[in-house]
């Protein structure tokens, strides 16, 4: 005799995506695929914010770098570098201006320029064969005083540091050479302020990061982290200081994409390595992307990122909620950044974002008196986009999203069950949104999958009424009107399948919305050796 249906709820989706584990042993709060969601603080999946056009600069070249340049007693200038195709030269733009202003040509067409603010100027690097330039809100000038070409630069303890100063080792320059300027002087580079870090070890300098230490009772200080391909070094102090030290960190990971290095206050320093994403917390260096390894290296139906262009990857961070965001090229994208990895730093879980427009860089715009803005430089069209800005759509277009659940079983993945229905609870999702559910039953013969579509019903708002409303005495003599139009809905998907296990893939296109949970109603069937489905 058939027993009662029992519920199998999935109401904590905060574990993000896990593409590695068997669907039957995923974490209870994990899903196989989570695309175009971020992890809501309340355990839901929230549709990501839209990609919103902020401005268009007058170029079709990729926007390879963006930085806010703030001079003393002056308004901030939002700088952008448009990456040219040789023999044309990269160009510097001011996109605060309306319309954006072309500030002039730089010195090369290097693919990975960088900008660091130092001593009231914006210092620009274009690789280890081009002398450093600076912009002082008036003109672009070349640094003097023996300033070395440097693939990577940093402002650390009021010295300008250059790392990887030449493609080959010659004199005091080389791919493992670390140099610094004099104090507060970007035009003075003494030869004494130089060292090689693991010279000629087959690796090259792959980025610099600043790691802040703030311990109770000790003045806050920073150490410089110098990355090579497969190692990282902690540089404390400055050249000439008594306790100046360079220490190798206990790790076999370095960095393969210099523009993915981000110091995340409260969490550590994150970047993309040859093994995936790693987080250095000052003591340990830990690989944190094992759950999504196929998204990085490929497997089955998942294409990998493009490792021939991986150095182009770019990362930034979001303050609220705390996220690390990294955009990488994929095999089919010819270097354009397309696959966006989103790491929730509190939950330590991943989701994947896909945007309608490819990017060339990501940046966090920090200006006094305004909330931080996360921006993306477009790969084509010279467009600057805002991400994570609270927009419900991509420039007016609804956002496509997808979640694939863990495997649902009644007893074990080999025991028969009858799946009657699935309920999906959505909140704040626009009425009229069509949600499609694909059910993948195991074993897969004779029915491969079943597709059911449901539409979020139109909610009848409460008619405005006169009377005392939200405020004690009302906003008018007779009170304020109240309407309710936020949708909280349970969509019922009839399944009606006998199987050993089932996976549901929900997808839709909407302007926002949250998936708060899923519940299956199943009945375990008597143990049997039968494996074929009979309907």
């Amino acid at each position, binding site marked *: 005799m058939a027993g009662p249906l029992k519920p199998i709820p999935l109401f904590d989706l*905060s574990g993000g995506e896990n593409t590695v584990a068997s669907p039957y042993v995923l974490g209870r709060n994990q899903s196989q695929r989570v695309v175009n969601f971020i992890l809501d*603080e*309340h*355990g839901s999946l929230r549709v990501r914010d839209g990609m919103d056009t902020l401005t268009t600069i007058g170029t079709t070249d990729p926007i390879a770098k963006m930085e806010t340049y703030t001079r003393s007693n002056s308004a901030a200038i939002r700088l952008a570098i448009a990456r040219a195709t040789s023999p044309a030269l990269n160009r510097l733009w001011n996109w605060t201006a309306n319309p954006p202003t072309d500030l002039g040509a730089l010195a090369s067409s290097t693919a990975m320029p960088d900008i660091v603010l130092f001593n009231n100027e914006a210092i620009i690097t274009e690789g280890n064969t081009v002398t450093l330039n600076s912009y002082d809100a008036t003109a672009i000038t070349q640094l003097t005083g023996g300033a070395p070409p440097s693939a990577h630069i940093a402002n650390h303890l009021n010295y300008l540091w250059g790392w990887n100063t030449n493609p080959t080792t010659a*004199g*005091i320059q080389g791919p493992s050479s670390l140099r610094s300027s004099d104090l507060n002087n970007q035009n003075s580079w*003494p*030869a*004494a*302020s*130089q*060292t*090689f870090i693991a010279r000629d070890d087959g690796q090259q300098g792959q980025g610099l990061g600043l790691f802040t*230490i*703030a*311990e*109770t009772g*000790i003045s806050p200080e920073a*150490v410089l982290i110098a990355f090579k391909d497969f190692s990282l070094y902690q540089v*404390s102090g400055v*050249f*000439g200081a*008594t*306790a*100046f*030290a*360079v*220490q190798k960190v206990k790790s076999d990971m370095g960095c393969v994409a210099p523009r993915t290095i981000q110091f995340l206050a*409260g*969490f*550590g320093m994150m970047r993309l390595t040859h093994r995936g994403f790693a987080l250095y*917390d*000052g*003591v*340990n260096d830990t690989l944190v992307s094992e759950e999504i390894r196929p998204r990085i290296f490929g497997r089955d139906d998942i294409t990998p990122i493009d490792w021939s262009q991986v150095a182009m990857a770019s990362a930034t961070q979001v303050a609220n909620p705390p996220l690390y965001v990294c955009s990488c090229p994929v095999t089919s994208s010819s270097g354009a950044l397309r696959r966006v990895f989103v790491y929730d*730093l*509190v*939950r330590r879980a991943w989701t994947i974002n896909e945007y309608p427009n490819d990017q060339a860089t990501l940046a966090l715009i920090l200006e006094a008196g305004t909330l931080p803005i996360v921006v993306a430089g477009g790969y084509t069209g010279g467009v600057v986009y805002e991400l994570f800005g609270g927009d419900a759509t991509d420039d007016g277009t609804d956002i496509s999203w997808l979640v694939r659940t863990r495997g649902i079983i009644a007893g074990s993945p080999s025991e028969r069950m009858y799946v009657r229905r699935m309920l999906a609870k959505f909140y704040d999702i626009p009425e009229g949104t069509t949600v499609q559910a694909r059910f993948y039953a195991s074993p897969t013969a004779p029915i491969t999958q079943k597709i059911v579509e449901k539409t979020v019903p139109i909610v009848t708002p409460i008619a405005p009424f006169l009377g005392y409303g939200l405020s004690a005495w009302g906003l008018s003599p007779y009170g304020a009107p109240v309407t309710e139009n936020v949708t909280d809905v349970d969509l019922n998907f009839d399944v009606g399948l006998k199987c050993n296990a089932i996976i549901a893939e929900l997808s839709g296109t909407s302007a926002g919305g949250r998936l708060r949970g899923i519940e299956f109603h199943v009945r375990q069937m008597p143990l049997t050796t039968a494996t074929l489905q009979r309907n």
Partner: protein
Amino acid sequence: MDYEQLKQKRQDEWREKQHALAMNLQSLRAAILEREDVKQKPDPKSPTSFPNVACPICQETVFLVSKWVTINGIKHKMVCSCVHCTYQGTYDWEFSRWLGL
């Protein structure tokens, strides 16, 4: 664990790591300060003799050292001037050579 509890847990973990890093740096600095090359840092106002370093101009071995660079407590470079012929340059201890020649 709800979100607020997780946030608190991360803050506690970060505080521990910051403390460990600060202690590591403190002990590293204390060890560096005991190194011979640090303790014997030349006085910039007094000539210092380096028998194995010859002035590239006059071959003398006494210098006034204006900048003494150590790394991990080991002498690395020095900026100095010869007291006999006033030659000024940077000497690289790692490769035992004058730079820029």
